[in-house]
Every structure is written in C-alpha cells, then in structure tokens.
C-alpha cells in the first residue's frame, strides 16, 4: 500500500467534488435545509410560549422531538449522498476508460479503491457534520436546548454513512452504475421496512416479525444504526415511554455496532478483491 498514491487519489476525488460543484450544491442545499429548520423551530417555540409552558419537561420533550426530526432528515439526506456521490466513481470510470490510464501507472489497484473510499467518507462525513452541527447549533441558539448523547448519536450516524459509502464503492467494482444504485437503495429500503416490521413485532409481541426485522438489520444495518443513534439522543423516560416515532420499541443491541464495523471491513475487502481482478 502506497500512502502517497492513496493521498493523490483522495486529493483528486475531492478536487473533482469541488470542481464539479458537488460541494457547492451540497452547501447551498444544506443551508436551505438549515434555514427551513430554523424557521420551523421559531414557530415551535412561539407555539410553546403561546400555549403557556406547562413546565420544563413538556418543553424539553417537544424540542427533543423536533430536533430529532431535524436529525432524521439529516440522516436521510446523508444516506442519499452516501449512495449517490460514489455510485459511479469506479463503475463510471471503468466504463468510460478513464481508469485505464490511472491503473497502468505504478500504483496498486487497491490504492485506487482506498483513495476513493477515503475521499467519499470525508465528503459525506463533512456533509453530515455540517447539517447535524447546524441543526444542533440552531437548537442551542434559538431555544437554548441541547440533545442528550449527541456525541454517541452522531458517531452512529457517521458509521451508518460509512456503511452506505462502502456499499456504493464496493458495488461499483463489479456492477454498472445504475445496477449499483438500484442495489444500494434496494438494500437501504429493505433495512427500512425491516425495521418497521421489527417495531410492529415488538408492539404486538410477534416474535416472527421481530426476527424478520433482525435478519433485515443483519443484511443491511443502516436503519438499526439510526435507531440506536435516536435512542441515545433522547432522555431515557422519552425512549421508554415510546413517546415519538424515534423511540424504538425494540432498541438495537450494541452488537449491531460491531456488526456494522465488520460489515464495512468485509465490503471493503470484497471491493479490493473485486477491483484487483476487474478487466479494465
């Protein structure tokens, strides 16, 4: 593994994101999102004051729910970016022939994959931190409110975005761009619906439904990571009473974090192996 080759690929990928206005578009859309969230928060606060606050607990619940709703939107936008940004970085360059001149240089093919992976983890991670940071900052500045467990929650959301970046990059070593996108979103959808089946199973006590959800989480751990993040970012009483849609009835185990880390490692190894043998 050559560090300089990986860093060259990272730099070029970031340069491409900047030059093709991907970063600018993300920034503009992110600012629009934060503006809208700020306006929403303003109305929520006005409503709380208009109704007459019946104690700090009720105010805290409402603001917690609204801030989590903001982070849920951030999570969704990050998931979209994590799949879409790298979806053609390998498959597109293989199809166009750009990679022929790159791979014929004295660098290992794994350095190309690792460089691109690292660059997109940085881009998507920065996007997540920008949006999530903006949501949390607005909650702090406008309502003097702070979510609990933010550090753990954001770390889990970041882990979820890495899972999806890795899935997208890995698919690109073997699949065409469109097929890769269909598979990545298909798996995300599977995890999403699997999570709801699991929640329904938890609510009704149906063990079979819960098992289906668990299997879906193992196939794609993204939604479980979000649920775990949401669980950590609300007070225990709110979570235990299932007061909001972000309070899972069946809280994913910490083992899901280890599973996700292993999932990333395996996907990355599959990508490295797939690309090393790929005809260019």
């Amino acid at each position, binding site marked *: 593994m050559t560090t*300089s*080759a990986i860093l*060259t690929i990272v730099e*070029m990928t970031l340069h*491409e994101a900047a*030059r*093709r206005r991907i970063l600018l578009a993300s920034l503009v859309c992110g600012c629009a999102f934060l503006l809208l969230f700020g306006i929403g928060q303003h109305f929520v606060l006005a409503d709380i004051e208009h109704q007459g606050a019946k104690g700090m607990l009720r105010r805290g619940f409402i603001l917690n729910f609204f801030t989590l709703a903001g982070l849920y939107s951030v999570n969704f936008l990050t998931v979209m970016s994590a799949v879409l940004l790298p979806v053609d970085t390998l498959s597109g360059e293989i199809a*166009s*022939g*750009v990679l*022929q*001149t*790159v*791979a*014929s*240089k*004295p*660098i*290992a093919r794994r350095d190309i994959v690792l460089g691109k992976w690292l660059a997109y983890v940085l881009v998507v991670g920065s996007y997540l931190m920008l949006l999530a940071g903006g949501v949390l900052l607005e909650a702090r500045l406008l309502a003097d409110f702070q979510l609990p467990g933010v550090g753990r929650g954001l770390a889990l959301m970041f882990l979820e975005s890495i899972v999806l970046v890795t899935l997208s990059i890995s698919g690109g070593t073997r699949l065409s761009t469109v097929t890769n996108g269909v598979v990545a979103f298909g798996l995300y959808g599977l995890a999403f619906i699997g999570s709801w089946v699991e929640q329904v199973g938890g609510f009704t006590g149906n063990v079979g439904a819960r098992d289906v959800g668990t299997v879906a989480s193992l196939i794609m751990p993204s939604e479980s990571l979000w649920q775990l993040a949401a669980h950590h970012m609300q007070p225990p009483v709110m979570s235990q009473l299932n007061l909001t849609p972000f309070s899972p009835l069946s809280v994913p185990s910490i083992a899901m974090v280890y599973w996700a880390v292993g999932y990333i490692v395996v996907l990355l190894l599959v990508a490295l192996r797939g690309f090393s*043998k790929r*005809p*260019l």
Partner: protein
Amino acid sequence: MSSYLLETHGLRKRFGDKLAVADLSLALRPGEVFGFLGPNGAGKTTSLKMILGLLEPSGGHGLLLGKPLGDQGARAKVGFLPEHFRFPDWLTGRELLHFHGRLYGLGGSLLRERSEALLARVDLLDAAHRPLKGYSKGMLQRAGLAAALLNEPQLVFLDEPTSGLDPLGRLLVRDLIRDLRAQGTSVFLNSHLLGEVEATCDRVVFVKQGRVVHEHVLGAHEAHRDVRIRAHGMSDALCVTLASLGEGFVRDGDRASLRVDGDSRLPQIAAAIVNSGAALFELDAAPASLEQLFLAVMGTEQRPG
C-alpha cells in the same frame, strides 16, 4: 536477464466462448520502434491490455522490462496512451499532467519542469490553463501523449496515437516518435495508418486472430518493387517464367503482378514477355508498400464487405 524490453510467449485471452487472443508470442528490443499491425478484431488492444496488466491473461506468460506482466515496478518505466484516451474533463491540461506525474511518483519542481516541457513539445502550452472539456479531439490526443511521457519511460505504448489528428498533428507525433528513438526510448506502436507505421517503425509484426503471422523489417527491403504488367497473349510457360523471377505472382487475363527484389529484374521480365511472343503494353514498377504487404499477408477475407 532477458535482452528484450518486452517478450510474450503464447499469451492467450478468452472471453467466455470467444477467443480474443489465441497465441501471442513477440519480442521487442531496446531502442526499437515496433509496429503492431492487424485488422479490426485481431486482438491488438486486448494484447496491449494484457501486457500492461489491465487484463489478466487466460494463458501464456510474458516479461515487461524483465518483470512478469502486471508488475507494478515495471509500470514505473512505461508510458501508455490508450486508443480512446479518456480523462477527467474538469481538469485543465496542466492539472492532468500534474495528476499523472504524481501517480508516477513525481513531484515538486521536477514535475513542474517536465510538465511545462512536454506541454510545449506537444504544442499545448497556450491551452494548458483551460479545462480539457474545451479541447478538440486532436488536442486531447496530444495531452494524452504528453501524459504518457512524463516519467521519461524506457518503453512507450501508443495505441492509435494519430487517430483524430490533422496532418500537422500527425507530423508532430511522427517527429516525437523519432525524438524518442533518438533518445533510446522504445516505442510499441499500434496504428491502422500504415503510412505512419512505415514512416516511423523499425520493425512490424502482423497479427491475425491473436497470433503473429508475419514479421517485417522496414528499410531492409527498400529495393523491392511491386511490378504490374499488361500484356496480350501471355502463355502458361511465360507465367511460369515470370513467377520464377519474383514472388506473389498473380495473373488476371491480360494483367499480372508480382514482387521482385530489385530493378535489375525489370529488363528480364520485359525480355521474357517479348521473347515469348506476347504483346507488352505496360510494365510498371513501384516500391513495395506496407499496405500491399499487409493485404498480401492478411488475405482478402480480412477486407470489409
């Protein structure tokens, strides 16, 4: 240690049921400009990709600069311009060279100096600050050529380097190849433009269905002439005599053609015709061209249509 820069032995590539390269064996000597010729679908680009490690061979083996094909270290001393040179079009010409240079492990002032020298050499200095998406096809081809030479390679692979170039661009590439040869750099040239190959190569091989079917040293047969005859009343005995004076004798009615090893054969041909009693109307001798040799080696079944 091999005395060849490149050698392949029985290289083979199969895609499913299709055999793209059957049995490629060739060798390239240091300092040589080597032409790799063949019709469409002869497996030339597939062969090139196997040599450069972009494709894994299904069989056979080879050495590039003394290392097994695909070796990363060997690629440090090799340059490559693909047939369809694609590029990140948001880069400027100068950025393209800097990116490729860094992949070769170059940096700092050395990379800057080489980039500027090569941009000047391929006549792109004035356009170097512009994004590649605004370049013409010929400009892109020249940018790709500059990128292939950044590492001052021992061996350069050029796959159709003059396709898309105007006559001035072709001249520039021809001069560049001559400069490379003068510097001792070997060139592996894959081109359909036989005139270009004839003007630049020392040796060519003809590839048919993934096999080398003929090797030809250019310049070694400059005296050869392609002779065309138009005569009435050519007898079978005369045809036998004419066939013995050269090679590739073909007769079609009053017309015949053959290749001879020098001008000295022409009076003998004229005398044989006249002495046989046939009426000679036309006797034309032209230097043997690579195109005619190509057609003779490949056979008419390779011609489209």
